[in-house]
């Protein structure tokens, strides 16, 4: 099962490698990982998408909690939450394709950030599924490259990870 784990941690050098090292040392799977400082510069917020049986997820959360730098964590997928991911997709855009990709970007609420004679670079911010759908809608031969940010997640309602 897919789980989204959100972690509030000390913004310390090496904190990221403690988390990444834990996953590799114990053979857990990371689908994506995003991290950046919060508005309080002493803390970072990390979102990890992982998968595994209930037992494995329980171990992952317990092992993460054991890391001294981890202040708090929650398995967002246990409750209502929002997930967003950003993708940058660079496509070949010549002739009829230019109009076609413009339309496609509009349908998916994407924005064209960079235009050249032969390319578009489209930004899309949405759920991971929608991004996958968008990329699937583009002819694979015409994709020059894609960059995905990985998932950021937050609980719905008043809940917060802040102590």
């Amino acid at each position, binding site marked *: 099962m897919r789980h989204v784990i959100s972690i509030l*941690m*000390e913004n310390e*050098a*090496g904190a990221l*490698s*403690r988390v990444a*090292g834990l996953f590799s*040392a114990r053979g857990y799977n990371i689908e994506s990982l995003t991290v950046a400082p919060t508005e309080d510069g002493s803390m970072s917020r990390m979102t990890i998408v992982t998968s595994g049986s209930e*037992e494995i997820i*329980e*171990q992952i959360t*317990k*092992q993460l*909690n*054991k890391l*001294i*730098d*981890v*202040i*708090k964590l929650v398995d967002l997928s246990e409750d209502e939450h929002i997930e967003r991911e950003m993708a940058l997709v660079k496509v070949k855009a010549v002739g009829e394709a230019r109009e076609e990709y413009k339309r496609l970007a509009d349908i998916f609420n994407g924005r064209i950030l960079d235009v050249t004679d032969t390319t578009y670079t489209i930004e899309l911010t949405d759920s991971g599924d929608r991004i996958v759908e968008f990329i699937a809608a583009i002819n694979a031969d015409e994709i020059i490259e894609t960059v995905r940010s990985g998932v950021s997640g937050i609980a719905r309602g008043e809940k917060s990870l802040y*102590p």
Partner: protein
Amino acid sequence: MELTGAEILVRSLKEEGVTHLFGYPGGAVLHIYDALYQQDDVKHILVRHEQAATHAADGYARSTGKPGVALVTSGPGATNAVTGIATAFMDSIPMVVITGQVPTDMIGNDAFQEVDSIGITRPCVKHNFLVKDVTDLAETIKKAFYIATTGRPGPVVIDVPKDVTADKAEFKYPDTVSIRSYNPVVTGHVGQIKRAVAMMLSAERPIFYTGGGVILGRGAPELTELAQMLGYPVTNTLMGLGAYPATDKQFVGMLGMHGTYEANMSMHHCDVLIAIGARFDDRVTGNIEKFCPFAKIIHVDIDPSSISKNVKVDVPIVGSVPNVLQEMIKLLKAGDKKPDAKALASWWKQIQEWRAVDCLKYDHDSGQVKPQQVIESLYKATHGDAFVTSDVGQHQMWAAQYYKFDKPYRWINSGGLGTMGFGLPAAMGVQLAHPDATVACVTGEGSIQMCIQELSTCLQYGLPIKIIALNNRYLGMVRQWQEFFYQRRYAMSYMDALPDFVKLAESYGHVGMRIDNPADVDGAMEEAMKLKDRLVFMDFVTDQEENVYPMIPNGAGLNEMILV
């Protein structure tokens, strides 16, 4: 007044009550050694290899319950220390290891004797710190000791670049420390404790399965009180020996791969398993699919991640062992329900039948020195009251089986990592912490050679350790597996070209003895113990192909032991 980082470091250790510092100097820690030279509060013990510094600090910690402290230089000093750090990590031993580092402006430049000590030690420490500013040094040391000794204990590494030890700052050692991201749970959940007590009282075939956490958590008195209130059998893991008196009638011996028949059979047939400070290690459970098939399981542990990691439990309780057990004792005293006496009597009758198998019997008339005999002789000569360290292999199992530990902190061995070379340096730490006690290092001719250079350290500090070497000219446990599972193809398990250990001991200034006649064992042991102020290396030439029994082969359940 401003002090240098080196002075701050040494003063901080003093503030933490550190009496012994095990270490080895080198370029990156010269300022620290200079500061050590100019004071008498912290005694530095010069080992002969950094691995031994960490094992000695570890032995000090295991025998006192206080954190052990080691100091090594950067680069190879740090990498040599890693085995000892990992050993302490696997057994949750409180330890603080200070590693020197190249100056901050050279970090990352592949400087002389530079390694990424933080990166290398990260997977085998509870936490580690790189101190980049002298003003952070005292607080970091305070945090390191706090983390190492609280919750589930473990080693903490502090990496200190050379320039930080030269820079100056005001010294004020913090009185308290608080880390917002680290708040170990101490008290157990009351509701869960009530459920556990009810389950314990409803048991017909109960057993206490207790591990190193009871010793580390200082919960041995509470365990003894609780077990004796209820009258239930107790088995200890390898790490838990001494947590319950081994000579008590309720003790059924060690469990696991080389546990007793009665302990393993009681585990297999129990209906309520009360696990305390034990972590369901694979050497204990055997085949996990076949583990305790009839049991409801209660598990008390300070570390939530130990609970339901290998075996799903019915009543998890996160908390410190003495705290939770005190609550249980209180509830039992307050309530009127008593254990089911009839069921318990028939359970004990069954256990006595298993005991009657006498799984630890061995041949007394072989004409050869039997390793089991040597341990029994050591037990007699030391009145069961010695500190016993061990290395890893057959001798370790025999020591665990035949030396009956009645007190905690007396049995000191590398259980989790299984580190050969641990025994002698660990014994140094024990002997320094307990100068008047008898300290025996049970070892083999293989293990002892992994840290034999420490005989020199023992001479320098006058450590009268008794080395009990069970010399069978084989890497015995490897050979035993090869005999059982590889059709006696003894690949590389023969120790050829052994030194003359008697002469070797003598060349280091110690006493050497060789014993090859079973009739001489007790006499030699008595004689060695009388040499109170000398290290004695006792080279017991033992039966070459003796095996450790009982044994649970890989993939088998606890009820599927190979008996002698």
